[in-house]
């Protein structure tokens, strides 16, 4: 069938600059660049996904990728994108598939929240020369502590639940081996270890060679139970039960058989080339009581030595659900907003289901405080954190720490072309093709990740110091340090913040 879909982009090649070296031809797994019969390079716009790999590697800067949005006659409803989707489905009968997080122009509440700073009173702190504590402990905190004086020294009598210690309130989000390459996993593990924080295996198991990063690894137990066995659970610093993911709340996942090569097959314990199906629900969890059963099954399996996290998508009833999770015995609640990324999701679900993480954090934190159980579980927020400003605002809204997924991928080279599901990632990240995977050098990728989090952590310290605060803990849930700009009364009520210009209460 002839396609009516128009190329999304136009590849411009400056013929004066092009030296016909063929780098672009070799770099493009989508075959957008080719040699013609005479050995001259040419390009096919319709194959280009705008991942910018060729542009970045062209030695003479001869390439430029332009938006090719067609002119749609005077219509805000039937946009070029709407028409493209219809043609694609009319031609295939399939479900629209995409990658990464929700790209739609929903309000980004981070950009409507501003932070406070000290002026004159309560002097600001200079983190370059004064103590500044970003250390964060994730895990259940006791309702109260008992201290006994022994020979004049205080001794803690309360048994504290297991905690994981982060040197900075930033972790790497769950991205499974299978969705991302071995080298990408290795880079995340190495960077997390060097940073004193944690990476998360996602639901694809932990490759044998990556057990060396286990002390800085959170392992996931998802509905497909891929790669879950007692050694995997024992090795981890913490265990996360994956209920939902912000990019696709309420549905499971299909890792396509093309991505299940020998190593993924071994790690997931399924045959080579077989689809890896993750059911939408865990079939041993149909209620909060059942969730509690799995939480305690994992605690029993690891003899109560590590925190158990439960990850959910941010949905309408998120506050009540989080309350149930805390009461079910989870030590950590991870909440993934609708801008959270994915290796593959139906486009309509990614773009239309779930709620922004900003509102979810505020609602959950407020609910757990109201019920007097906020101490029982730490909150990790996830879903499209772009910079340190977003992170510090999340903590002021009530999160303990933040998961980075997309930002970590971008640090490694991702250009957010949203074609992860094809397995043809030219940056060597979302692929299992050995030729492509080799492009991601785990040493360099780990260094880039380290640098990113180091930079953000410095910025967080500076902003904290500016507010006259010397420990990240003192900012957590401290919404007086936030003010709203351009939000409705209802939005401010959910966020629990006042309009900019109102005084410190």
């Amino acid at each position, binding site marked *: 069938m002839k396609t009516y879909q128009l190329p999304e982009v136009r590849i411009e090649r400056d013929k004066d600059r092009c030296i016909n070296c063929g780098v672009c031809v070799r770099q493009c797994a989508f075959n957008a660049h080719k040699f013609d019969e005479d050995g001259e390079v040419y390009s096919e716009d319709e194959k280009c996904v705008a991942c910018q790999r060729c542009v970045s590697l062209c030695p003479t800067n001869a390439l430029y990728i332009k938006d090719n949005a067609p002119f749609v006659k005077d219509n805000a409803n039937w946009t070029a994108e709407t028409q493209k989707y219809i043609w694609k489905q009319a031609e295939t009968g*399939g479900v629209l598939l995409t990658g990464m997080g929700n790209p739609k122009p929903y309000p980004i509440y981070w950009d409507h929240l501003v932070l406070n700073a000290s002026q004159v009173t309560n002097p600001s702190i200079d983190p370059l020369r004064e103590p500044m504590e970003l250390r964060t402990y994730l895990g259940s905190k006791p309702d109260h502590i008992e201290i006994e004086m022994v020979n004049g020294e205080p001794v803690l009598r309360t048994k504290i639940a297991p905690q994981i210690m982060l040197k900075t309130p930033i972790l790497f989000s769950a991205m499974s081996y299978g969705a991302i390459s071995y080298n990408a996993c290795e880079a995340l593990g190495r960077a997390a270890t060097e940073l004193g924080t944690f990476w998360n295996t996602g639901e694809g198991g932990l490759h044998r060679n990556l057990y060396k990063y286990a002390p800085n690894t959170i392992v996931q*137990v998802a509905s497909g139970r891929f790669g879950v066995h007692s050694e995997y659970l024992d090795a981890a610093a913490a265990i996360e039960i994956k209920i939902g993911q912000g990019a696709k709340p309420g549905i499971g996942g299909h890792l396509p058989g093309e991505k299940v090569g020998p190593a993924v097959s071994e790690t997931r314990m399924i*045959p080579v080339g*077989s689809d890896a199906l993750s059911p939408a629900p865990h079939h*041993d969890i149909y209620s909060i009581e059942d969730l509690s*059963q799995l939480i305690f099954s994992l605690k029993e399996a690891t003899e109560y030595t590590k925190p158990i996290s439960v990850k959910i998508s941010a949905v309408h009833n998120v506050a009540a659900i989080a309350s149930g999770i805390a009461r079910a015995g989870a030590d950590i609640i991870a909440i993934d907003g609708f801008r959270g990324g994915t290796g593959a999701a139906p486009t309509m679900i990614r773009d239309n289901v779930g709620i922004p993480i900003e509102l979810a954090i505020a609602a959950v934190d407020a609910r757990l405080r109201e019920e007097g159980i906020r101490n029982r579980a730490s909150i990790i927020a996830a879903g499209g954190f772009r910079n340190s400003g977003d992170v510090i605002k999340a903590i002021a809204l009530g999160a303990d720490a933040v998961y980075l997924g997309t930002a970590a991928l971008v640090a490694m080279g991702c250009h957010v072309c949203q074609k992860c599901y094809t397995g043809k990632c030219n940056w060597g990240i979302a692929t299992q093709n050995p030729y492509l995977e080799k492009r991601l050098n785990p040493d360099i990728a780990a260094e880039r990740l380290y640098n990113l989090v180091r930079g953000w952590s410095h910025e967080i310290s500076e902003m904290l110091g500016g507010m006259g605060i010397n420990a990240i803990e003192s900012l957590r849930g401290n919404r007086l340090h936030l003010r709203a700009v351009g939000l409705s009364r209802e939005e401010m009520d959910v966020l629990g913040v006042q309009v900019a210009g109102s005084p410190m209460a």
Partner: protein
Amino acid sequence: MITIDAKGLPYRELNEKVREAVAGGETEIKLANVNGQRYIADAIDSPVQITIEGVPGNDLGAFMNGPTVIVHANGQDHIANTMNEGKIVVHGDAGDVLGYGMRGGKLFIKGDVGYRVGIHMKEYKDKVPVIVIGGTARDFFGEYMAGGTLILLGLDTGNNDSDQIAGNYFATGMHGGVIYVRGKLEDYQLGKEVAVLEVDDSDRQTIEKYVTEFAGDLGLDADDILKDEFIKIKAVSHRPYGNLYAY
């Protein structure tokens, strides 16, 4: 061989005692007066034999990696959840979602079982989990099955008076492994991802091997069971949803 009296013990204390006994080198442990305690043998790594008197609670043998567990009563839900290695034998009926995500080892249930039994089992090379059910099963038997062997015998060994050997949505989403049924299934009972095939010699050998072991463990007559006809259910594709998407 030691006996642990489970009477009145919360699961956490009972399981601690079991783990202590295993760590102390016990090879045979008897649990007396078990009454619904969960997580027995959860994630235990040694090839210890655990005999249970009374009804164990949910998640018996979850993440288990080696022990042999014998239950002289009925079992509850989620037995052999994500189990890796070892064997569980239940001399009675059992509940829902047995052998969920099972990766290896064996689960034998003498009587009838509930819904979603043997779902999402896996296999890798020579690591092939096996479940044999003596009686009948409810809906969604073998759902999402990715590997392993499920055998459903339909004997009159349980307390469920259903006249059907299995419920509906049999093996929906199956994309690997094999199911053998001693009896017949109607087309409407089957998931659309599977086909019914005749058993060949190699299937026959597999069935004989596991049924003989099952019958031996549970005091049944293997020859009598094997006299009847079996059918084989397999996935028509290991990529059942490959054509679902618009790339």
